[in-house]
């Protein structure tokens, strides 16, 4: 009983059908309705000065020594600093599929495989720059691999100007006993759409610490699919939203506890002002054999306007009988007692608000295991509050 809809002009231009609210996972983010004009896929040459301006705008520009720069979806070796990095071609084939991945394949995304065979202490930044041009769609597909016993810190930064649909797939493979810290900053153009999928594979005794900071784009949908393939692995995925205007940001994570003795933690701290809307959908699936699973997720919203909205949808799907799983969600405005206390000590209203907002998202930033990066994020939150 197919009820195939007539393709929209946007769907024709992209070459895929877009998910609509008829699909449960997309009920809050109806891409079919929201992407309402054609974004034909296009390779665009970027003027060097646009690239350089955007590169300099990365809050991590002075922190990461090695970097891999993508400009308008293509690797830009000239602006990259690849020395010491193990970079190869990425295999286009992916194990899972969903609308974001389907679009990524259709758009013939380019990208690299970044492999860490030894421990690398210095953060490596992958920067995605999109420059202003006619409305268009573009895609990237990268793979971050940490070999058995190795460890690495990777920053993924998205910056852009103009009107575009950016589709980004990132594969993350953490080997046995390996450790990966990732920090993703999505600060795409305020007119853009950001569609992302992270696919995580964690082997035995590995550790992943992922922090996702979302403040750009008019429309963001980021999916994450994590698989525990080996026992005693641990995954932390934290997130912070800084949204204003009519921004819409939806994160949908699925954590698959396929094997016993793994731990997962999700913590999202979401700030919404004006008419912004934030969504967090977290699903934890515990397979029948995955005894002693410890899975917890929580999402907290700070609503700075009466029109701002936050939706949380936690889901637990548990087939094992000896597990500890839980979820929690809260939403509220700034605490009046906190505001009064700060003001009673001479701190003006605007500064008091800024302190409390920074403290709220700071709980997510605290997960970043690097002082310089944490300070850069604090600065980012501060300027967000000031320029709100």
């Amino acid at each position, binding site marked *: 009983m197919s009820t195939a809809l007539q393709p929209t002009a946007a769907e024709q231009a992209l070459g895929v059908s877009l998910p609509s609210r008829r699909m449960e996972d997309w009920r809050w983010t109806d891409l079919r309705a929201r992407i309402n004009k054609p974004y034909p896929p296009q390779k665009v040459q970027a003027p060097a000065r646009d690239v350089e301006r955007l590169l300099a705008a990365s809050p991590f520009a002075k922190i990461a020594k090695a970097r891999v720069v993508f400009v308008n979806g293509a690797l830009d070796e000239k602006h990259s600093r690849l020395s010491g990095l193990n970079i190869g071609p990425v295999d286009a084939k992916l194990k899972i599929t969903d609308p974001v991945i389907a679009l990524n394949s259709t758009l013939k995304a380019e990208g690299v495989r970044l492999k860490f065979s030894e421990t690398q202490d210095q953060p490596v930044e992958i920067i995605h720059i999109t420059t202003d041009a006619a409305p268009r769609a573009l895609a990237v597909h990268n793979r971050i691999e940490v070999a058995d016993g190795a460890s690495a810190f990777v920053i993924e930064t998205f910056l852009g100007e103009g009107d575009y649909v950016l589709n980004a797939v990132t594969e993350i493979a953490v080997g046995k006993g390996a450790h990966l810290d990732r920090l993703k900053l999505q600060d795409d153009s305020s007119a853009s759409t950001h569609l992302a999928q992270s696919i995580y594979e964690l082997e035995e005794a590995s550790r992943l610490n992922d922090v996702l900071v979302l403040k750009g784009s008019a429309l963001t949908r980021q999916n994450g699919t994590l698989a525990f393939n080996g026992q005693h692995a641990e995954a932390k995925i934290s997130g912070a939203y800084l949204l204003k205007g009519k921004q819409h940001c939806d994160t949908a994570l699925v954590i698959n506890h396929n094997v016993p003795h793994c731990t997962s933690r999700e913590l999202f701290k979401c700030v919404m002002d004006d008419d912004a809307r934030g969504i967090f959908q977290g699903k934890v699936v515990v397979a029948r054999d995955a005894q002693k699973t410890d899975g917890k997720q929580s999402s907290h919203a700070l609503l700075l306007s009466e029109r701002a909205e936050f939706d949380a949808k936690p889901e637990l799907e548990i087939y094992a009988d000896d597990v500890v799983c839980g979820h929690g969600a809260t939403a509220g405005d700034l605490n*009046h*007692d*906190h505001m*009064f*206390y*700060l*003001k*009673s*000590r*001479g*701190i*003006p*209203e605007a*500064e*008091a608000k800024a*302190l*409390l907002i*920074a*403290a*709220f998202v*700071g*709980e997510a930033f605290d997960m970043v295991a690097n002082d310089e990066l944490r300070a850069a994020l604090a600065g980012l939150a501060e300027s967000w509050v000031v320029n709100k």
Partner: protein
Amino acid sequence: MLEIKNLHVKLEDESREILKGLSLTVKPGEVHAIMGPNGSGKSTLSYVLSGREGYEVTEGSVTYNGKDVLAMEPNERAAAGLFLAFQYPIEIPGVQTMQFLKVALNAQRKARGEKELSIPEFMRFVKERAARLNITQDMLKRPVNVGFSGGEKKRAEILQMAVLEPSLCILDETDSGLDIDALKVVAEGVNALRSPDRAMIVITHYQRLLDHIVPDVVHVLSGGRIVKTGGKELALELEKNGYTDYAEKAA
């Protein structure tokens, strides 16, 4: 310095008056104790002076060095030199105590047109005062009041006072929840701040705090009004006879 005239206050969402024509004059260098039974309006007075929302002044005036306090925002009152040590200090997760002190001090200095302190200057300034109040470096690194014991919270309030150097300190039931040793530390901290330019209003239910912070003037607050004013011996008399006489007078 502080001039309260015929102050009438009610809660915003209730019609019942809490303060019913309170008048009080405090001069520089003086320490005034305000004593009274529960429900007499002691805490309301402290909140109205500091500008907490939820109260409505229906009549009367409060001026501080000639300025209309009631027209000022809480932060403007603080910058003008008013400080309330809270009966129940508020916990603020995620804001480090040291950072809070720095932002507060610099905001006040800025409001008064003074230069902000450099980080090393500020650190030295705070550490010196913290040491006198047995406040550890660890406490300064923790979020404001979070996980502090009752005594630690009260000491932290006095530290804020010592750092911000207000010209009028209002201590609201600073002795509540303190054992005698903690009380002595707090009282020493307060006494160290006594100066000819600085006035204090010590609000308390019990006389014992006044053994350690000796007041110049004692007022009895009952039924929303000051019903008796005397010297420090008045506190002792209250300790002996209780508030019964005054409660009747108010009714």
